[in-house]
C-alpha cells in the first residue's frame, strides 16, 4: 500500500550509449522522479502529479516530448499527449500541436474545460490560445540533435531501398523495428497517491521522419495511456504496435478479467508484441510498480512509499558508478560494449539504432 510512481523517457534505447548522451538523461530522470516523489509526499492528487512530472519531462530537451520532440518528414514538430484519471475515467488528449509548450497541460484542459476528450491540429491550437496556455514559436521545440536524427533517418530510408544491411544474429533477437526509431522516445508517468487514486499521462513528438498528420499511440486512450481503479499504464515504443495491441488497456483487462497480478498483466502485452517495439510503466492501486520492455533498453525510474527507488536504462538498475553499471548490464550488452570500445570511440559513436 502507499503511494508509488513510475516514469519513462522512452523505449527503443540502443545497446550502448556514450556518456554524453546517457548522463543528461539519467539526470533528467532523477530530477523528474524527485519532483514526483515530493509531490506525492505533499499529498498531491495523482492526476496533478502525473501532469506535473510529464511537464518536467516535456521541458527537458533530451526526451522526445515538448522541447526536444523529434521532427516529422517536413522538419517540423507535431506533438501529442493524453492524460487519464483512474477513478472517474475522465480523459483528455491532443494531437498535432506545434506551438504549445506543454502539450500534457493542454490535454488536461481538454478534459476539464471542454465537453470533448480529444482535440487536434488547428482546433487544438485555437483552443490553446483561448485558454491562454504558454505557447512558443515552433522553432523553440527543435533541437540540433533532432535535426541530425531526421537527416539520418532520411538517409537510412534511401539506404534501405538500395540494399539490406546484414545484421549479426544476436542483434536480431533484440532488434527494434526499423523506420525512424530514434534514441529518444515518448515520455510518460503513472502514479497512485496515498488515497489510492490512479492516473496516467503520456506525451510525445512521435516518430522521426513521420508523415505530416501521423497520429501514434500516445494520445489514444487504451493504447498509450490508460487508468482505472486497478492500475495506471503509460506505454512507449513503436506506436503502430501499441495501437494494434491496445497495450495500456490490456494490462488492466488482464488484471480484471484474468486476475493476473500487475507484473504478470504488464508483461503479457509486452511479450506478445513484436520484439523491440514496446515498453511500459505501470502502478497498481496497492502501490506496486512494474516497468517491462522488449526493447534493448528503456529510460525509466520509479519509487514507492516504502523508500525503494530506481533509475535504469538497460536490463538492471544503475547502481552508481560506471564500473558497477558495466557489471550490472547483461552479458550480451557487455560483450557488445567491449567490441565497440576496441573499435575505437569513433566507431562507438557511429552505432546505428538497433533495427
Amino acid at each position, binding site marked *: 500500500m502507499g503511494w508509488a510512481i513510475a516514469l519513462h523517457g522512452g523505449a527503443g534505447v540502443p545497446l550502448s550509449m556514450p556518456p554524453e548522451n546517457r548522463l543528461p538523461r539519467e539526470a533528467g530522470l532523477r530530477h523528474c522522479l524527485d519532483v514526483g516523489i515530493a509531490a506525492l509526499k505533499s499529498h498531491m492528487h495523482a492526476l496533478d502529479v502525473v501532469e506535473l512530472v510529464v511537464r518536467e519531462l516535456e521541458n527537458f530537451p533530451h526526451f522526445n516530448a515538448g522541447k526536444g520532440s523529434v521532427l516529422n518528414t517536413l522538419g517540423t514538430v507535431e506533438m501529442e499527449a493524453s492524460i487519464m484519471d483512474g477513478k472517474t475515467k475522465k480523459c483528455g488528449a491532443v*494531437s498535432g500541436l506545434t506551438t504549445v509548450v506543454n502539450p500534457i497541460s493542454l490535454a488536461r484542459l481538454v478534459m476539464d474545460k471542454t465537453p470533448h476528450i480529444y482535440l487536434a491540429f488547428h482546433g487544438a491550437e485555437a483552443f490553446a490560445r483561448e485558454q491562454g496556455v504558454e505557447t512558443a514559436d515552433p522553432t523553440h521545440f527543435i533541437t540540433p540533435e533532432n535535426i541530425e536524427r531526421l537527416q539520418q533517418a532520411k538517409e537510412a530510408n534511401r539506404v534501405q531501398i538500395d540494399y539490406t544491411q546484414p545484421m549479426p544474429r544476436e542483434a536480431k533477437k533484440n532488434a527494434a523495428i526499423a*523506420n525512424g526509431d530514434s534514441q529518444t522516445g515518448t515520455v510518460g508517468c503513472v502514479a497512485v497517491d496515498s488515497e489510492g487514486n490512479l492516473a496516467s499521462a503520456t506525451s510525445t513528438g512521435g516518430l522521426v521522419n513521420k508523415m*505530416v498528420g501521423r497520429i501514434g499511440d500516445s494520445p*489514444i*486512450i487504451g493504447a498509450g495511456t490508460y487508468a482505472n481503479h486497478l492500475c495506471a499504464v503509460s506505454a512507449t515504443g513503436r506506436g503502430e504496435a501499441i495501437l494494434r495491441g491496445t497495450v495500456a488497456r490490456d494490462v488492466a483487462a488482464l488484471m480484471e478479467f484474468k486476475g493476473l497480478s500487475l507484473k504478470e498483466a504488464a508483461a503479457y502485452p509486452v511479450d506478445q508484441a513484436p520484439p523491440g517495439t514496446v515498453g511500459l510503466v505501470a502502478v497498481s492501486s496497492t502501490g506496486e510498480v512494474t516497468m517491462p520492455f522488449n526493447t534493448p533498453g528503456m529510460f525509466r525510474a520509479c519509487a514507492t512509499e516504502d523508500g525503494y527507488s530506481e533509475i535504469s536504462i538497460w536490463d538492471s538498475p544503475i547502481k552508481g558508478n560506471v564500473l558497477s553499471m558495466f557489471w550490472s548490464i547483461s552479458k550480451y550488452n557487455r560483450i557488445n560494449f567491449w567490441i565497440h570500445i576496441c573499435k575505437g570511440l569513433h566507431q562507438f559513436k557511429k552505432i546505428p539504432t538497433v533495427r
Partner: protein
Amino acid sequence: MGGWAIAVHGGAGVDPNLPKERQEEGMRLLGRCVDVGISALRSNIPAIDVVELVVRELETDPLFNSGRGSVLTENGTVEMEAIIMDGPKRRCGAVSGLTTVKNPISLARLVMDKSPHSYLAFSGAEEFAEKQGVELVDNEYFITENNVAMLKLAKEANSIVFDYRIPAPGTVGCAVVDKEGRCAAATSTGGLMNKMRGRIGDSPLIGCGTYACELCGVSCTGEGEAIIRSTLAREVAAVMEYKGLNLHEAVDFVIRNRLDEGKAGLIALSKKGEVACGFNTTGMFRGCATEDGFMEVGIW
C-alpha cells in the same frame, strides 16, 4: 465454422418521435447495404473488402452521419473521420479531420495498406489523399439542408448534440466475418453536431469505437466520451478473450456494466458467424444477416 455474417448500424440514440417515413428510409438504406454485403460475401470477397464496400454505400447516401450528410462543426463545416480494422493481424487504418475526401473509409483503407502508419489526420491526411488520387470534392458537397437546420437548433439550444430531443443522424458502421472466419470492422462519421473544430471522437480510435481481432469485429456508436472511457469495442473482445464469454454474453456484459452513465450501442460478430447487437439508448438503426438465412433490420 459458422459461415459468413454481416452487421451494419446507422447510429444509436433515435428520437422516439422520428417521423415514420424517416424511420422507413433509414431501414431501407440499411437493408440495401446488408444486401450489398451479402452479395459480396456470397462471391467470396474477403471481410476487409466487404466492410469498406458497405461503409462506402452508407457514406455516399446523405441519410446518416457520415460522408455526405455528416453533421456540422460549430463553424458550419464538415470534418469527417473513419477507421477500418482487419481482424487476422489487427492491422488498421484511421483518418480524422477530412474535409474534401468523398469516401473517408477508403482513405482509411489506404492508410492501412499504403502508408507506414495507422492514423493520419487533418492536412496530413488530405495531402495523403491527394497523393493517392482518391476522389476529392468541395466541403459543400457533404453539407445537407437538414444538417444546416439542425446546427441552427443546436446553437440556439447551446448544446453539443448528443440529445435526441434535437434529432441528429448517427455514425455508421459495419462488421463482417467471411467464410474463412476472418473478421473486420469499419466505422465512419461526421462526429457531433456543433462540435469544436479539431474535435476527434471515439470512432477512429482503435479499441474505442472500433475493433477487430481473430475472435470478433465490433463497431460502436453513441456518446463518444462514454465509448472512449470504456474502450468499448476492445472490451467486447477482451471479455471474450480473457473471460471466455461468448459473443452474446460479452456484448451484454459490456453494455450493462461498462457504460456507467453513458449512452451507446454496438454491433458485433464473432469468427463463428454469430451476430449480436446491444444498446442502452432508445433505439439503434441496425441490420444484420447470417449465412443460414437469418436477416433483420430494425430500430427499436
